[in-house]
């Protein structure tokens, strides 16, 4: 590895040469032979030049050498602030600008430029402005040059910083997810942010920014390397956007579907219509709150007619809820979910788009739940617990844990099949469905709470129960707020059994399935004490055997090349 040669390594390739370098011929039929060859042609070109057909270069980004980010990165990261400053300056000088074109319009004396002109400091002032600009440009340039990354068979590594150097190296088999975010402005530049999520606080590796096509290709390459697959790399297989003018390409990228048809199934398995999205938001818990609040205001104004003070308290809350509605709506637009060989891909967003791949075995628990108002329409929401946390917020403005913002029973079945491979079988899906809508009978496959538990579970005691499904545990809860939690055995960290004094009098107990932290707590209370003890033993044994045979950290290592 030539990492010691920095900065005179491959990354130092002369930029002008790249513009004239011929794009490698991409013929799918000869892809295996073409594998190693393009390295010599393209490996020495910078990561992505603006307007260049980046996708052809992307495969070489994962060749183990150091590469640089998109040249517009500093502008996209810090340049917005610079633009804002320039905007403020221009706004302040607008009267002078008007004066320039419309003489005698007259403007207030004593502005800074007048002072400079009168005291004869014109040259020093221009010099100072130029110096600042030069320093900024040099600073941006140096920070861009010093910010390099590489992807090897084992790790993804980033070096950055000028005065304070940082070097972050992440193991590929510990990747929890790869997220590509395209903020509006970056999309105009054809750039994208790629984020490799690792377990742990602030443990993500960010590549800000890459060429839009390069980011997609790089993600595929990282996933291929991480999967342990022995399949040969398909270099340049996705060079689809290489023709046409720059404007055409940008437009193409801007309007392109979030899921690359070459890498994913062309169709999202769930169609989320705008009507359903609006309906789901209108029927969400916030609405109940809003209605209760309005009722409260009306009641108070009837009984204490002089006190419209209630209204004052309501306005900010109503505004807050309204903002939440709009956020949730915009974030969930254009929602897609599809399966790829390297995991589930979830995309959403109208202007700022986000598209994340979760490799198999990275989902620690799944919750299918139904708020009460969704009962009438038969809608459900699916959330997951995961070890990595993307810095970008997900659908509905939450952390990227909502996998399905709203969907009907069929949608949930398809999503479950994607996130938990065991649940693509009809038998398992039938079990999950019983967990979702079953009323709770003796022979429905779930071990439910005994009748004496109705003291603790007034309405839901019939439904409150667990089942051991294929490679996972299912917990069914709630009569009014129906909920099903699925925890795959290989992701179980530990299991607990507990009993308080009240439960002891009733011969009941509670079980807890511990997974990584997230929106889901897999807990089931008020089940028969003996059943719970047996469950504790069984699941503890199943968790051990499942985790010893689990290969999902290198999810394709068992398949043939």
């Amino acid at each position: 590895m030539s990492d010691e040669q920095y900065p005179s390594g491959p990354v130092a390739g002369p930029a002008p040469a790249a513009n004239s370098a011929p794009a490698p011929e991409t013929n799918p039929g000869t892809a295996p032979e073409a594998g190693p060859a393009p390295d010599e042609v393209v490996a020495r070109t910078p990561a992505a030049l603006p307007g260049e057909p980046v996708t052809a270069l992307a495969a070489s980004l994962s060749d183990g050498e150091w590469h640089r980010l998109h040249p517009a990165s500093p502008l996209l990261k810090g340049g917005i602030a610079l633009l804002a400053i320039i905007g403020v300056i221009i706004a302040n000088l607008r009267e002078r600008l008007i004066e320039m074109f419309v003489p005698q319009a007259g403007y207030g004396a004593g502005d800074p430029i007048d002072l400079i002109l009168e005291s004869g400091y014109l040259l020093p002032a221009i010099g100072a402005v130029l110096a600042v600009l030069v320093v900024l440009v040099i600073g941006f340039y140096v920070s861009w040059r010093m910010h390099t990354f590489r992807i090897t068979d084992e790790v993804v590594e980033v070096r950055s910083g000028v005065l304070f150097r940082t070097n972050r190296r992440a193991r590929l088999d510990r990747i929890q997810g790869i997220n590509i975010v395209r903020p509006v402005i970056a999309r105009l530049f054809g750039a994208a942010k790629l984020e490799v999520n690792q377990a742990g606080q602030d443990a993500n590796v960010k590549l800000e920014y890459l060429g839009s096509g390069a980011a997609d290709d790089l993600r595929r390459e990282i996933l291929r390397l991480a999967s342990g697959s022995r399949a040969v790399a398909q270099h340049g297989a996705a060079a689809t956007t290489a023709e046409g003018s720059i404007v055409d390409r940008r437009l193409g990228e801007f309007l392109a579907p979030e899921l690359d048809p070459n890498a994913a199934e062309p169709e999202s398995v769930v169609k989320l219509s705008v009507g359903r999205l609006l309906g789901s938001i209108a029927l969400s818990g916030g609405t109940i709150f809003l209605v209760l609040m309005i009722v409260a205001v009306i009641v108070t104004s009837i009984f204490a007619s002089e006190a419209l003070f209630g209204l004052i308290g309501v306005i900010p809350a109503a505004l807050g809820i309204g903002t939440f509605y709009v956020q949730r709506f915009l974030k969930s637009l254009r929602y897609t979910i599809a399966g790829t060989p390297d995991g589930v891909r979830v995309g959403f967003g109208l202007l700022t788009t986000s598209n994340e791949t979760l490799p198999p075995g990275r989902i620690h628990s799944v919750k299918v739940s139904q708020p009460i108002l969704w009962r009438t329409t038969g809608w459900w929401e699916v959330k997951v617990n995961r070890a990595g946390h993307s810095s970008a917020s997900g659908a509905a403005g939450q952390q990227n844990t909502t996998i399905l913002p709203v969907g009907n029973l069929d949608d949930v079945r398809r999503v479950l099949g994607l996130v938990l491979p065991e649940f693509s079988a009809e038998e398992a899906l039938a079990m999950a469905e019983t967990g979702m809508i079953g009323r709770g009978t003796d022979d429905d496959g779930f071990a439910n709470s005994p009748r004496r538990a109705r003291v603790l579970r007034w309405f839901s005691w019939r439904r409150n129960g667990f089942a051991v499904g294929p490679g996972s545990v299912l917990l069914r809860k709630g009569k009014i707020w129906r909920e099903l939690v699925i925890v795959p055995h290989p992701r179980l960290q530990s299991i607990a059994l507990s009993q308080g004094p009240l439960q002891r009098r009733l011969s009941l107990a509670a079980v807890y399935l511990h997974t990584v932290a997230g929106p889901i707590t897999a807990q089931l209370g008020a089940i028969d004490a003996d059943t719970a003890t047996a469950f504790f033993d069984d699941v503890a044994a199943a968790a051990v055997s499942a985790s010893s045979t689990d290969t999902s950290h290198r999810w394709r290592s068992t398949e043939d090349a």
Partner: protein
Amino acid sequence: MSTRLDLPTLAWHRVSPKYLTAEFIGLAVTALVVAGATIPLHLFGWDYAWWATAAAVLAVLVYAAFTPRRIRAIGYVLRDDDLVFRKGILFQRFVAVPYGRMQLIDVNRGPLLRALGLSDLKFVTAAASTNVIIPGLPQHEADELRDHLVALAESRRAGL
């Protein structure tokens, strides 16, 4: 009818009886602090200030009376593939942690425990709620257990 939770087939390791001394000293300090907290009542000259002090100290004493049983209820077993931990009398809790799930082991010693030659051992997994802390192990036993658990985890390494 009532059923107390138990896993009868397991031979529990209990914590050192010396740990009781540490707990009692700790409780004595707690009693002093609680009594001290009622000093302002005396300064204000409240009639029932002495009652308040007595009630506070009594609460600590009642808690102390159950401490021997509480400590006897703490136990752990090393099974073939996992560690089972139990604690609590009124609120019982059993936890089973597969060895391969270990992220790290903490061995902590406060000044009091060090004087008694004891240590606390904490088994940390990727789930915060696992919360397995075995208190009051003799120092050499804690170190041996730590090394043993680390070796077991190494031989059963799994992803997250």
